[in-house]
Structures are given as structure tokens and as C-alpha cells.
């Protein structure tokens, strides 16, 4: 193919600028859609990751029938299992759950009209929610973590602070304990002494007690199914038909919204992923028709080329060259527009638009194959 032939072909391409621009626009549209589609997909994938990573799935321990989660009277051993204190007994619940919240209340003989409340964390007791204007102020060297330990310490309302910093409590006639004050409860309930959940009344001696409320979060949402399976080896799925026996407890896993948002994102993703091959098919068809229209009006021109003595393949490659040029130009243009819209050039978007352009070119090439088969005996026909 001589250079001058290519050069006049290119000039003719420019002089037919409307038709050429249309083909460029079609190729550009394919590329832009690939970019936009990929942008949408990657945003949905991101949303999926974020939902999995950031959604807190909380679980509430209930009684056997599921009718109450407030006054469980559940043995503290269950909380020990949840917090990983029972690993030596082959209970690995703490591998699947985190942020265990539990509260157990004990009435006190003295100080009078006071109650002792064991908590695993500040948020174990709804009364301590900062929303209610409560703030907990730990003394120097102490933090919320102390609630997880076994030190004999407590947090009290300001009016209970003693001079020596200790407070003496006794739940019954035989027990008396001196507990160190390590924090102040501002704006909170009065008459309640908060202490670490597993605090023994006497050093070294732990006793079982009853727990009022308990809840926790799933540790790793990606292992939700596995986690539930394991949780239900120790707890049950609460059912109103169950008769409370004081020994069996239920867990409500609050994962409906989580599943709902995952389902939404996943169905979006499925849709978007289906659209890619659909787009490819459409581009192939558009390419075919574009090539068809481009060559249809030019049959006489190609027949004249044949009549002048050009070989079939020469003409075919000339046409394919034109289409390739326009498609490449369209892809660049579309890539530019896509970049402006999306603000990035993802390799996936580039490879997809390359595939789409290729499908488009194949469509046009198939259409252009017609010109190889034109009957030049009809060249002198006056019609067409």
C-alpha cells in the first residue's frame, strides 16, 4: 500500500467528516461506558468491602424463649466463655466475638441503699451512655480496661468519694470488702458502685454469680456463618415455644440489615457485571451496522477501485485501516472523557474498553467483508 494512497484515503476520510465523526463517536461511547461501568463496579466493590469491614453485627443474649434480655439470671460462666476465660475447657467463643458487654447487679447491705454493679465496659450499662450526659473520669493510671481485670476497684458518683479513697461494701453479713475508688461518675446514677465484672470480693476467691444483661459483637463479619454456627453450640436460637429453664440461653444475632445491604450491593454488582458483556454485544452490533452503513453508501466507490485495478484485499485493508484509525481515535477520545468523568485510569477500564473496541472493530470488519464480494459487473448500473 503506497503512502500517497493512504494519504488521499485519509484526506477523503476528513472530507467525509460527518460519517467519520459518527464512527469515532460510537467507538468513544463504548470506551466511555467501559470506564463508567468500571467506575460503578469498583465503587460497589468498595462499598461491599466497607460494609463487611465496618458493619457492627451485635448479638444479644436472651432467655431460652427470647422474650427477655434484661433480667437473665444467667450464670457468669457464660460470660467467661464469651470473653475467652474458658479456653482451657475447649470453648473458643472469643475467637468469634468481640466487645462483650455484660452487667450484673448485686444489692448491698452496706452502704445502705446502694447497689454494686459489675460491668465489663462502660457501654455494658445503658445508664452510662454519654448520650445521657454521663461522663466517666478515671484517676491517673487507670482506664476503662480496669473493668476487664480482677483488681478490687470501683467507680462511684462524686458524693461517695471518701477521704482515704476506699469504700467498704458488704453484700451480706459474712462478707466485707474494701474497694479502691479509681474513677468518678459525673452526671450518672447515684447509689450505684460500679466495679470490674469479674472482681472477687476477697482476693483470689472468685464465685459464680448471676448476670442481668449480656451482649457482644461478631468479631469478623466475613466469617459470620461460621461464627453463628459456633455461637449456637453454646447458646440456642431463641423460640417463644421454649420453656425457660434457667440453664439454656438464646442469642439473637442482629444481622438483618447487614444481609440486606450486602444483598443490595451484590445485586447491583451482578447487574453491573452482566452489563459488561451486554455492552460488548451491543458494541459488536453497533460496529457491524456502522461498518455496514459506512460501506453500503460506498459500494460504487469500491467497485470503481476494483475497476481501476485494485486488488480485493487491498481495498479491504484500506477500509479496515480507516475503521481502525477511527476506532483508535474514538477509544482515545473516549478514554479522555472517561478519565475526566472517573478521575482515574484503572487498568481494568482500559482493558475492557480495548476489548469493547476490538469487538466493535470485529463487527465493522465483518460488515466490511462485503466489499470483497461486490459484483463489479454491476458497476455501470445507473441506479444505486
Amino acid at each position, binding site marked *: 500500500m*503506497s*503512502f500517497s*494512497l493512504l494519504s*488521499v484515503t485519509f484526506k477523503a476520510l476528513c472530507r467525509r467528516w460527518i460519517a467519520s465523526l459518527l464512527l469515532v463517536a460510537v467507538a468513544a461511547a463504548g470506551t466511555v461506558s467501559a470506564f463508567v461501568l468500571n467506575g460503578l463496579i469498583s465503587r460497589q466493590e468498595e462499598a461491599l468491602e466497607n460494609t463487611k469491614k465496618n458493619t457492627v453485627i451485635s448479638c444479644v443474649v436472651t432467655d431460652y424463649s427470647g422474650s427477655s434480655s434484661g433480667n437473665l439470671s444467667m450464670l457468669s460462666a457464660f460470660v467467661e466463655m464469651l470473653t475467652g476465660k474458658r479456653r482451657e475447657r475447649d470453648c473458643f467463643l472469643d475467637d468469634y466475638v468481640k466487645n462483650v458487654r455484660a452487667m450484673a447487679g448485686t444489692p448491698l447491705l452496706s452502704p445502705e441503699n446502694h447497689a454494686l454493679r459489675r460491668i465489663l465496659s462502660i457501654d455494658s450499662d445503658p445508664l452510662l451512655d454519654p448520650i445521657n450526659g454521663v461522663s466517666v473520669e478515671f484517676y491517673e493510671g487507670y482506664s476503662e480496661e480496669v473493668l476487664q481485670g480482677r483488681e478490687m476497684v470501683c467507680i462511684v458518683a462524686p458524693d461517695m468519694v471518701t477521704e482515704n479513697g476506699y469504700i467498704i461494701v458488704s453484700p451480706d453479713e459474712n462478707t466485707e470488702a474494701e474497694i479502691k475508688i479509681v474513677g468518678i461518675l459525673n452526671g450518672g446514677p447515684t447509689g450505684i458502685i460500679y466495679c470490674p465484672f469479674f472482681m472477687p470480693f476477697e482476693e483470689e476467691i472468685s464465685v459464680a454469680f448471676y448476670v442481668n444483661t449480656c451482649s457482644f459483637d461478631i468479631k469478623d463479619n466475613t466469617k459470620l456463618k461460621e461464627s453463628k454456627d459456633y455461637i449456637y453450640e453454646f447458646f440456642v436460637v431463641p423460640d417463644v415455644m421454649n420453656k425457660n429453664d434457667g440453664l439454656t440461653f438464646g442469642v439473637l444475632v442482629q444481622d438483618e440489615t447487614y444481609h440486606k445491604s450486602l444483598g443490595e450491593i451484590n445485586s447491583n454488582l451482578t447487574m453491573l457485571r452482566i452489563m459488561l458483556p451486554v455492552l460488548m454485544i451491543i458494541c459488536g452490533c453497533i460496529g457491524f451496522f456502522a461498518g455496514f452503513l459506512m460501506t453500503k453508501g460506498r459500494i460504487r*466507490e469500491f467497485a470503481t477501485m*476494483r475497476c*481501476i485495478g485494485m486488488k480485493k484485499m487491498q481495498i479491504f485493508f484500506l477500509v479496515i485501516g480507516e475503521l481502525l484509525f477511527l476506532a483508535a481515535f474514538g477509544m482515545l477520545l473516549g478514554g479522555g472523557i472517561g478519565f475526566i468523568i472517573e478521575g482515574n485510569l484503572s487498568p481494568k477500564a482500559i482493558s475492557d474498553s480495548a476489548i469493547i473496541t476490538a469487538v466493535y472493530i470485529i463487527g465493522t470488519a465483518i460488515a466490511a467483508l462485503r466489499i470483497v464480494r461486490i459484483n463489479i459487473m454491476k*458497476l*455501470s448500473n445507473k441506479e444505486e
Partner: protein
Amino acid sequence: MNSLSAKEVFYEYRNSFQTVKAVNGISYNFESGRVYAVVGVSGSGKTTFLSLLAGLDIPTEGKIEFDGNATSDIDRDNYRLNHVSVIYQNFNLFYHLTVLENAAYPLYVKKMPKAAAEELAKEKLLKVGITESQFKRLPNMLSGGEQQRVAIARALACGSEIILADEPTGNLDSKNSRNIVEILKNLAHEENRCVIIVTHDPSVAEAADIVLKMEDGAFEDSI
């Protein structure tokens, strides 16, 4: 000295529904330096015969020989590129190329350097009466007669020994017709080319050296 001859040529158009016998046994020897006019009623097979001479297809039976070689045996693309040019009633120019690019097109195909090709094309355009100011125009800015002259210049630039014209004056007024016929005549007589013109126009036929009358795909005795 090139020769063009038809030997017992038959041609049928075939499709799935029917067969049309368009050429029915033509034998004739065309000589260079002469103008032939092929006349006959519409549908008598003139265009078909001309197309066979141009090597656009091969006869169903018999053969067209150029320089003693049957068109069925030679590279017909090459034959058309170098030895035979066809001029049509509707000119068949490239409408997105300028006059000059049209005339030089076959030379581009022949891979002649651009400058040389355009030099030669200019010479031929001037020869058929296209002026320099028209070289850069697109064909549809020219009159029919001028367009036909560009088509002739394109044929001349190729250097083809054989010029075939299918009703070249069919779309032209009488003044332009005379001019085209004059040009074609000069090609035969001054440049020793073989010119074969298919025509309806009696005045064109009159100008020819030899008139061949076609009827039902065959020549009647020459007049």
C-alpha cells in the same frame, strides 16, 4: 503492438432463480488506432460485452484475449490497472477526492511517487481541457462534461492502450458530447490507442471508424 480479441464469447448472468444469456457468441478482433462504436437497443448485451473486455469477469464460454493471453489466465487486476480503462456514463469518480487526486489515483495504486504521479495527472488533465484552477475542486463542483473529462484523464494517466467507454455521453449535452468524442477520437488516431465506445447516440456512432451493431448478445454484420 497490443491486440484485443473476442473468441466465441458467451456470457450468462446466473442467480438462484434464473439465467440470463447476455452475450451470445461474439468473435471479433479489435485493432489499435481505431475508434469502435457498439450500438444496439437497450438490453442487447453491450455493457456486458464491454465489461468482459475490461476483465471485470470472464466469459462463461469462449475467451477474451489480450496480447494472445486469455483474460481467464492472467491477473485481471493487473490487466485493468495497466492496460485497460473504462469510462462510464455516470463517470464513477471518487467524490471525496479532488480532480487531481482522482486523475492520479491509479498512479497511487501503482505506487508511483506522489510528485511524479501528480505531474503526470496534471498533464493529462490539461490535455483533456481541465484548467489548473479546477485541480483542487471536488468532482461535484464540475459540470458533467468536465467530470467525464476527468474520468478520461484518469484513464490516460494509467497509460492504458485500451479505452472502453460505456455511453460516455449519455449524461451530457450535445456540445459536451462532441467534445468528449473528439478527445476519444484523438486518443485513437494520435496516440494509437484502441477506443471502444458503447453508445445510443447516432452522432457518436457517426464519428467512429467502425460501427458494430449488437442484437441479442451478438454482432450483426458490421456496417
